[in-house]
């Protein structure tokens, strides 16, 4: 086992953890840059597959970092990636939760929240584009089918009635098995 790669995992995922404003989608482009381009831990289609695994399991889809860590350094890598990505932000949450009420009614608290709302939407769109580039455009002989799948899911969720998104994700997997082999 290589201690150096464990330190790299810890460093990369801790950095991503404290930058994850608005949740995991915001750091997807940076996560892809670090893990695919800079570190070369997984290739682009593995990144797409691992992201999809994160969609299938319950809980936060960013649990995908466990699989990336496993690819780098087996079980220790999985543990280090998990701790790196989830502990720093949780410690920040714990600390902030305790002092938050001191800023009750502060106009600056509202200003910061209003300022970051559009930035988070921008980052989430960037995360969506990042996954679309990997899952739909890149390395794909079935561009039209993938585009159609994404479009159908979007239309159902955006315009349709309330439906559990997990069902559509599973339906996407079934459709993939039929049409994308």
């Amino acid at each position, binding site marked *: 086992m290589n201690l150096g790669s464990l330190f790299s995992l810890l460093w990369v995922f801790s950095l991503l953890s404290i*930058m*994850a*404003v608005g*949740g*995991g989608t915001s750091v997807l*482009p940076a996560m892809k840059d670090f893990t695919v381009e800079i570190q070369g831990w997984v290739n682009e289609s593995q990144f*797409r*597959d691992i992201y*999809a695994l994160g969609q299938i*399991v*319950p*809980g*936060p889809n*960013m*649990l*995908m970092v*466990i*699989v990336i860590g496993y*690819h780098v350094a087996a079980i220790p890598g*999985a543990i280090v990636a998990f701790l790196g990505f*989830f502990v720093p*932000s*949780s410690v920040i*949450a*714990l600390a902030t*939760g305790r002092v938050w009420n001191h800023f009750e009614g502060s106009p600056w608290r*509202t*200003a910061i*929240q209003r*300022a*970051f709302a*559009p*930035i988070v*939407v*921008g*980052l*989430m*769109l*960037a995360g*969506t584009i990042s*996954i679309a580039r*990997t*899952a739909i455009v890149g390395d794909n002989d079935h561009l039209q089918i*993938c585009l159609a*799948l*994404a*479009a159908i*899911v*979007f*239309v*159902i*969720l*955006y315009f349709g009635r309330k439906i559990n998104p*997990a069902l*559509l*994700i599973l*339906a*996407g*997997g*079934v459709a993939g098995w039929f049409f994308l082999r």
Partner: protein
Amino acid sequence: MSDEPLPPPSETSQEALLPPARITLAEIFLTFLAIGATSFGGGVVAYLRSSLVEKKGWLNDDTFLEVLEISQTLPGLNATNMAVLVGDRLRGWPGALAGFLGMMLPGALMIFILGIVYASHAQNENVNAVLKGVGAASVGLLLAVTLKIGRKQLEKPLDIALVVITLVLVSFIHVMLPIVLLTVGPVAIFLYRPRTHLPHKADDHSFDKRPAD
């Protein structure tokens, strides 16, 4: 932002939310374990509310919204931050740890097993086909969630401009995320700085924000 009424903040909410009996760490762990095992597809906020407010009565709606607001403002995922914040309120840091572990354990174990299986079948065309389908479907899901959030929260031209600037910097000019946050963030805070003649209303939309974790 909208006309939806926000329940008035009550001075006693801190005391009112504490249930009469002392909640055990095991109870916190098991409650979040159940949420962690069943929150598929990114709807974690709905699961949290139904369990913590409606079933357990550990939080009232005011407190739930307040904790949600904190967890959405901070870095990290909603699900994890909520588990930590609620656990801390119920039983201090051991409660936070119990909530965190409960929330993460089911998904972490499942993806760990799936990850090991995947590692030896990464070239299997059936596996790739299913995951490609899931990936494509999740693009539709992400886009729908993002646009719903954006539609509810953003109305001013300045909001739209900040969305576009952030998107272009990250997706098309490929500026590194820390640099984007450290440049666009302060500029946006300056533009939304408190002004006495133009008070901003508090954000009423905590429920609809960022459910994608």
